[in-house]
C-alpha cells in the first residue's frame, strides 16, 4: 500500500520551482506531506482531505485528486531552507499512514 513518489531526487537553484508527485493504487482518505532534514525527525507540512482542495503553507502548496488517487506538492521560488527529503503519507481510513520512499530535494545558491 506504499504510495509511489516521483521524482526520487531533484536539484534546484534558489528561486526555481519544483513539483513532487505522490500516487497510490488504493483509495485515499487523506494525504499528509512531511519534510525531513538529515538526522532529524519528519516535520508536518500539511494535510489534504477528500474534496480536491488545495492548501498552502508560505510558498509551498499541495493538491489532492482523490479520483486519480494522486497528490502533488508545489514548491515555488525555492529557498535554501527547502532542502530536505519530502514524504507523502496516504491514509487508508483505518488509522494507518503509508509513507512513500521520499523525494530528496537539494536547493543550491
Amino acid at each position, binding site marked *: 500500500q506504499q504510495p509511489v513518489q516521483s521524482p526520487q531526487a531533484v536539484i534546484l537553484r534558489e528561486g526555481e520551482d519544483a513539483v513532487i508527485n505522490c500516487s497510490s493504487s488504493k483509495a485515499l482518505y487523506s494525504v499528509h506531506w512531511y519534510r525531513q532534514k538529515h538526522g532529524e*525527525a*519528519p*516535520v*508536518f507540512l500539511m*494535510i489534504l482531505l477528500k474534496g480536491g482542495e488545495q492548501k498552502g503553507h508560505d510558498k509551498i502548496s499541495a493538491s489532492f485528486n482523490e479520483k486519480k488517487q494522486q497528490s502533488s506538492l508545489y514548491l515555488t521560488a525555492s529557498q535554501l531552507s527547502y532542502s530536505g527529503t519530502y514524504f507523502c503519507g496516504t491514509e487508508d481510513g483505518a*488509522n494507518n499512514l*503509508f*509513507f512513500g520512499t*521520499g523525494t530528496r530535494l537539494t536547493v543550491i545558491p
Partner: protein
Amino acid sequence: DAGITQSPRHKVTETGTPVTLRCHQTENHRYMYWYRQDPGHGLRLIHYSYGVKDTDKGEVSDGYSVSRSKTEDFLLTLESATSSQTSVYFCAISVRGQETQYFGPGTRLLVL
C-alpha cells in the same frame, strides 16, 4: 513542539539481546505510533496504540511487541534483536486517528 521524547537516543546492542525503546508524551494524546525508517523504504509502521492497553499491528510488526500501560508512555520491545532490526525508530502521536502525526526525535539502533 508536540512534547514527545524518545529514549535512548542511540543504542548499540548484540544479536539475540532484548531491547526496549521508550516513547513519552506530555500532551495526553490518545494515538501513538512506532515507525522504523530505512534507506529505500521510507517510514514503515510497526505498531500503534489507540489508548491504554489498546494496540494493533502495523505492516512490519514481526519481531516487535509493544505495551501501553499509561497514556503518556508507549514502549517498543525487540524480544531478541537481529541485525535486520538495525534502523532509526520514530515514535509519533496524533490527537485523533486519521489526523496529523507529530514525530519524536528518533532512536538510532545498531544491532551487531
